[in-house]
């Protein structure tokens, strides 16, 4: 995420602001409602996905791009995200895209955002059904440089599975 202000601007605002309180919304007292947001970093190599449970979002995005004859830049433009993020998704199996990116990918694939989220490393590790389907899909994806008929079938079957995916 990009910040739209500079530190110079921030420093001058802090100097100008009156010395008053700024708390808003629910008055946070303990961690009960926010503990769900504290998860181990998915890029933490000390916590890889368990054996037999592999993240496949990177493979899926790459294959979708090949199927639709799109360059990285064209896909990024199509779903309105940065080229660098598409590259990172394809390169790093443990990368978890930001919510808007997952939403745009989901719209492109015509599946739910939850289905896309379920393909990330930390989510796969918690969902046996998805892990099984992902493993089957990944196993059929050997050569990423060209999409064979078998790979195309595997990809289409997997996207169908995603379209019917229900979280929880």
């Amino acid at each position, binding site marked *: 995420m990009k910040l739209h202000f500079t530190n110079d601007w921030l420093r001058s605002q*802090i100097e100008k602001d009156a010395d008053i309180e700024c708390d808003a*919304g629910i008055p946070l007292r303990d961690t009960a409602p926010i503990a769900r947001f504290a998860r181990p970093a998915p890029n933490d190599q000390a916590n890889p996905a368990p054996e037999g449970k592999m993240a496949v979002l990177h493979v899926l995005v790459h294959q979708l791009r090949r199927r639709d004859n799109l360059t990285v830049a064209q896909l990024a433009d199509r779903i309105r995200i940065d080229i660098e993020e598409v590259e990172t998704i394809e390169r790093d199996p443990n990368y978890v895209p930001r919510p808007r990116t997952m939403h745009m990918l989901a719209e492109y694939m015509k599946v739910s955002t939850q289905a896309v989220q379920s393909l990330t490393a930390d989510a796969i590790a918690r969902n046996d059904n998805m892990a099984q389907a992902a493993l089957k899909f990944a196993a059929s994806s050997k050569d990423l440089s060209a999409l064979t008929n078998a790979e195309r079938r595997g990809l289409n079957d997997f996207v169908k599975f995603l379209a019917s995916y229900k979280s929880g």
Partner: protein
Amino acid sequence: MKALLSIVPLKNRLNGSFEEASLFQGIDADNLAHIEARWRPMFEQRKIEAKKTGESLAEINAEDAHWEWGKKAIAAVRDPFLFDIFVLECAGNTQAIMLVRKGGEKCFSRHPDHLRAPLIYVDFLSTAPWNRSRLVKEPVYKGCGRTLISTAISLSFEEEMRGRIGLHSLPGAEEFYQDQVGMTDLGTDRNYHGLRYFELSISNAARIFNP
């Protein structure tokens, strides 16, 4: 996932100097531990003091009913993709935390300039008790609110909402949001513990970082 967004300045009121703080998107177990072990005891202690001195819990924004209601409201949202959470760390401590939501019924503008347009809603922006003048005599860091609210505005631009944000200000912070951030006071919200609701309009958002 917790990712460093930027190193930002916070002003140490005690010595008048700016210090480097880390602004993160996401939280981790350390932040939770800070809140439980460092924030919470101070809140509890302040509540005890308030009872002794005859202050109401509302005066120090420590009403249990509001907190219980808020906890349930957040827990009721099942889709974690609706939320983003940001944290400010400085001097080895969690100085402030902000939870925002990007979709759902609260994320529609009430501003007459763009009624029903989507916005980023700030569920809460909380600063550590030692930074709050209602809780301690000599608050430490200044700038936590300015930094986090500017982050929410940035997120709104990133999410193509043109800088629109909305929030319910706690008593004592209304002046900050109206006069200093430039948000519009849309009145008392009877459906939200009687707090005043504020929004940053597109026109004010367009000017805020380019005065």
